[in-house]
């Protein structure tokens, strides 16, 4: 039997809103005020009052067009998926070679070389405590080591993110291998992933090798060198990840990253380089926390701000210079040691935020990172997560699919304002270089880290399995010791390293290091005295990573980051 359909007149907006507000307030007994990590107040409901269609062209436009909110390419992930870039590095160069091959076979499309912490600190393998060697990255010090890392792998075919701070000795060693294998440098593609010395000074101290003024100079030399010799290489990756991992809010991390990029661009322009030529080679690297909408808004706002910055501050006319290309990594800070398998869900949510935020390249963390260096099984799941999101969940079918959401567009605009406010603070402090010397960003980050921790301690922010939904008996995975490299293999590697040093042409190495020292002492920009060019020559002549770093630390000052309690 059929009922008479109930016909009601469409209510007016105002009266409907008033009715909803009343009903809502009746159901919410606690103070409903919420703020996201960046401090923006989050309302329970967003409507066309917050964001309306009239703003479409001003706020959004079309993909690949200004203001770039919807993505930097016309086709985005529909055309070409993001690059699946997993970090690898462990043990000896042979170990790295094996792991890289496994990852490529599993669907990885690019390499990402993670060196041992001894390398990060600028030392050779014979300068640090043996138990630490190769425990969290590959020990790579010489051109022979680099050759072994890429044994049976075409270095001209693989895009490589080299996680190596300035003076970028690992890229220099890679270029030396290219020479040895007769591969043209024009075929070497990838990114100097850890070129952002300011982020190291501020938040990732391990990577900070050379005193600030010297770092500033070497980076500009590196950009100039790559512009001339490596057309397929991105010499600068500005890293917001370190600061966010260090405790910066998403808005602060984005703002400080943009300020850093402005500083580098100004330094390059001061050297006489053309923004329309160097800016298209700028790339960025962000952390994606689990604060889902906030992260999407952060990335969209950052994209919109960058195109405006490069046009307004640098007069960039080349549309390629307007593109905010970035790699993103799911945040390890959000992962928990308690109930570690939960991390698979967290990583998936973080990855979705990054994908909806329009990333170009993605690293998904292994769920057991917080326990130890990831197992192969966990690394496989991390890659599978990306494959599932792309091919099973069809996240790539539509470009910027959340655009037009009242909430997201409002939040994107608010995040943009929040980011601009922080940029204004840094501008007022004389720019990023001066601000970090004075410790301003360090102070901001330290405070934000504490504020967040206090929210966790007080239960205001829930972390499942940590401050809520705890389980008495943690059904965790079996206790696992740190995977340690084979000691005999490492000792053999050390012996090989010593043999390498004994057998090379000492005269050639000494001469190359002298030339490097002279270049470091020449005025920046002196023709024929590009420090990075001399680094590459030294690596080719057989100088080791540690020798090159030591030489520049002697000439330009040892990097002492501003550590703040």
């Amino acid at each position, binding site marked *: 039997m059929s009922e008479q359909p109930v016909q009601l007149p469409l209510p007016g907006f105002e009266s409907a809103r008033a009715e909803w507000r009343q009903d809502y307030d009746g159901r919410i007994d606690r103070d409903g005020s919420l703020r996201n990590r960046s401090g923006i107040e989050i309302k329970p409901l967003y409507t066309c009052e917050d964001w309306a269609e009239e703003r479409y062209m001003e706020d959004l436009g079309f993909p690949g067009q200004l203001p770039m909110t919807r993505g930097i390419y016309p086709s985005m992930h529909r055309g070409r998926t993001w690059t699946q870039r997993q970090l690898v590095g462990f043990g000896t160069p042979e170990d790295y070679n094996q792991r890289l091959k496994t990852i490529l076979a599993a669907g990885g499309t690019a390499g990402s070389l993670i060196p041992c*912490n*001894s390398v*990060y*600190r600028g030392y050779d393998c014979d300068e*640090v*405590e043996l*138990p*630490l060697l190769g*425990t*969290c990255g590959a020990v790579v010090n010489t051109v022979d080591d680099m050759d072994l890392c890429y044994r049976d792998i075409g270095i001209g075919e693989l895009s490589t993110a080299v996680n190596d701070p300035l003076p970028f000795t690992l890229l220099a060693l890679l270029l030396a291998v290219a020479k040895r294998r007769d591969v043209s440098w024009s075929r070497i593609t990838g990114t100097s992933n850890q070129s952002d010395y300011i982020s190291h000074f501020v938040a*990732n*101290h*391990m*990577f*900070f090798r050379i005193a600030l003024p010297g770092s500033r100079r070497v980076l500009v030399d590196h950009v100039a060198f790559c512009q001339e010799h490596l057309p397929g290489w991105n010499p600068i990756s500005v890293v917001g990840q370190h600061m966010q*991992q*260090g*405790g910066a809010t998403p808005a602060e991390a984005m703002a400080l990253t943009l300020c850093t990029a402005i500083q580098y661009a100004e330094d390059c322009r001061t050297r006489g380089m053309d923004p329309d030529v160097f800016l298209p080679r700028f790339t960025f690297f962000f952390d994606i926390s689990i604060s889902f909408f906030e992260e999407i808004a952060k990335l969209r706002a950052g994209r919109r701000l960058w195109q405006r910055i490069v046009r307004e501050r640098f007069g960039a006319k080349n549309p390629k210079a307007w593109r905010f290309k970035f790699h993103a990594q799911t945040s390890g*800070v959000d992962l*928990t*040691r*308690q109930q570690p398998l939960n991390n698979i869900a967290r990583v998936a949510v973080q990855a979705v935020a990054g994908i909806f935020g329009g990333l170009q390249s993605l690293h998904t963390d292994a769920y057991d*990172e*917080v*326990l*130890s*260096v990831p197992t192969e099984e966990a690394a496989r799941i991390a890659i599978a997560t990306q494959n599932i999101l792309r091919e099973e969940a069809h996240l790539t079918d539509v470009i910027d699919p959340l655009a037009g959401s009242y909430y997201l567009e409002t939040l994107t605009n608010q995040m943009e304002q929040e980011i601009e406010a922080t940029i204004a603070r840094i501008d007022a402090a004389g720019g990023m270089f001066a601000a970090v010397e004075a410790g301003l960003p360090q102070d901001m980050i*330290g405070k934000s*880290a*504490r504020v967040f*921790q206090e929210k966790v*301690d007080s239960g205001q922010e829930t*972390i499942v*399995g*940590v*401050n809520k939904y705890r389980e008495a008996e943690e059904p*965790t995975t079996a*206790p*696992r*010791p*740190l995977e*340690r490299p084979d000691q005999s293999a490492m000792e053999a590697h050390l012996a090989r390293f010593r043999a390498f040093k004994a057998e090379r042409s000492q005269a050639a190495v000494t001469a190359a290091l002298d030339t490097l020292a002279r270049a470091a002492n020449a005025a920046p920009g002196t023709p024929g005295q590009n420090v990075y060019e001399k680094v590459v020559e030294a690596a080719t002549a057989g100088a080791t990573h540690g020798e090159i770093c030591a030489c520049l630390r002697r000439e330009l000052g040892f990097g*002492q*980051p501003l*550590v*703040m*309690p």
Partner: protein
Amino acid sequence: MTDTAKRTSRPPRVLVTKIGLDGHDRGSRIVAAYLRDAGMEVIYTAPWQKIEAVVKLAVEEDVDVIGVSSLATDHLLLPDLMAALGAAGLGHVRVVAGGIIPDGDEAELLRAGVNRVFHPGSPREDIVATVSHLAAQARATCANG
């Protein structure tokens, strides 16, 4: 003043430091602030301390507890630190470690004499109470020894 500080005749003195190669200091900064807010005196250092430097520092500052933060693999050096402290006559000094330390390595550290290992998510109250308790122990051992 908090109860922790009142219980002892003077505030516990705690060294918060990092050894080895890694430089991530978010955790050590937060823990240092926890301990200060609980009324302790925290001697805070840059990362990458050599073991002999940690020993010298512990002597000069007359600390009760040493807290070592390790987020990479630097905890592997802790047995060496414990041996060096013993050799320098600092057997009474209590040592705690915190950060990303694999479960499977914990037993080895405890065997080497580390008093406690904290993991990510360790509650603030637990950290503060443990350090305070260990500081009192260190003083008692030192006075009675």
